[in-house]
């Protein structure tokens, strides 16, 4: 029993949810990494294992891994497998930040279109963050 090797568990993904299937996998892995459930250096399951686990085509998993690798969140070692990169945590945090920024921008635009003034938008945001 090793404590540093937590079992790998990604939530269910579905074509009905928003975004392409591979994008959903990318997002889930990023969340696992940024929330610390996947530590740097931890091994990820092989394409095939993950495909069987999530019941999606190989091509979807492959594409998700390629995307994650491109963003520097994971790296591949020939013959050894796929691992979370040392800077993966920061990278996925950066990635998450940029997603958050994008969503905020979108929210601000929607609010502006609904006729809210900047001060009102700010108030709305504060209320949401405080959980009202």
């Amino acid at each position, binding site marked *: 029993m090793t404590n540093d090797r937590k079992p790998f568990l990604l939530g269910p993904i*579905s*074509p*009905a949810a928003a*975004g*392409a*299937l*591979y994008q959903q996998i990318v997002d889930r892995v990023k969340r696992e990494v940024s929330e610390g459930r996947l530590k740097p250096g931890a091994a990820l399951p092989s394409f*095939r294992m993950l*495909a*069987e686990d999530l*019941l*999606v*085509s*190989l*091509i*979807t998993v492959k*594409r998700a891994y390629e995307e994650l690798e491109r963003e520097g969140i994971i790296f591949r070692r020939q013959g050894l497998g796929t691992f979370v990169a040392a800077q993966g945590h920061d990278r996925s945090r950066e990635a998450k930040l940029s997603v958050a920024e994008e969503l905020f921008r979108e929210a601000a635009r929607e609010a502006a279109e609904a006729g809210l003034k900047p001060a009102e938008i700010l108030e709305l945001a504060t209320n949401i963050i405080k959980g009202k």
Partner: protein
Amino acid sequence: MNDNAIEIRGLVKTYFPFRLGALDLTVPRGAIYGLIGPNGAGKTTILDLIYGMGRNEEGEIRVLGFDHQRDAVALKRRTSYVSPELNFDVWGSVGRAIRFVRGFYPTWDDAYCKDLMKSFDLDAGARIAWLSFGARTKLSVLLALAHRPELLLLDEPTTGLDAVSKQQLFAELLRIVEDGERTVLISSHNLTDIERFADHVGMIRHGQLLLEGRMDEVVDRFRLAEFFTENNAEFANRDGFIVVKRNENRWQAVLDQERGVADWLQKSGAQNLSLTRMTLEDLFVALAREKEAV
């Protein structure tokens, strides 16, 4: 070694008034290939011709490098066919059906067969006539898998299967293609499943191949375009552009991004153009209806 499990070139077959082809189809080795198309598009005809049920008038079918007519037996030894429509009643019990089929394949794997019987809950003594529809499909799958075919052809396999059995089936299919050597071709109307499990997709309509390629690329290529027009500009279907719905000056259309129609649209007076991702199902419905709309 050939990289394609199935190569169909210039295939033509006429069942008056239906005409298939001329059709080209390429199923890469190691893939799960989803063959989709409206009812009567010719999916079953393709599968029939591969198995020599009916003769094609023109064209060539090569399966695993074998000519489908000259090397019919060698081809069939390495492939399997699954359909809920297959009838095994004559065998009486599940065990006798297994015994019959096992005799054909030197590659039959008894241990695997036992595993499958267990996971599909099929008892050797069970009477086939009393099996439920889903259980008959499972029997067909079992008989097809247990000799570990290099190519598996499934014709509407999920009809009548409950959600659990369906997941079981797809998990099994994913395991088959694990080593990258075995290939699965699946024809189905359940497009959510196809989008999820298939690596490649081919869509046929009226006996013609409409599009073919990697699933993610095909789905990414098309977008649902929403826009409105002033000055009563009219848009008709054209290459890479299919109108889905129209309500006065509001439009919804499917847009092929490889054809550069977005620019054309904006030049022609489309306003507030927004593009959203489509599921395979939405895309299918739009493409299948294209001809009717014109």
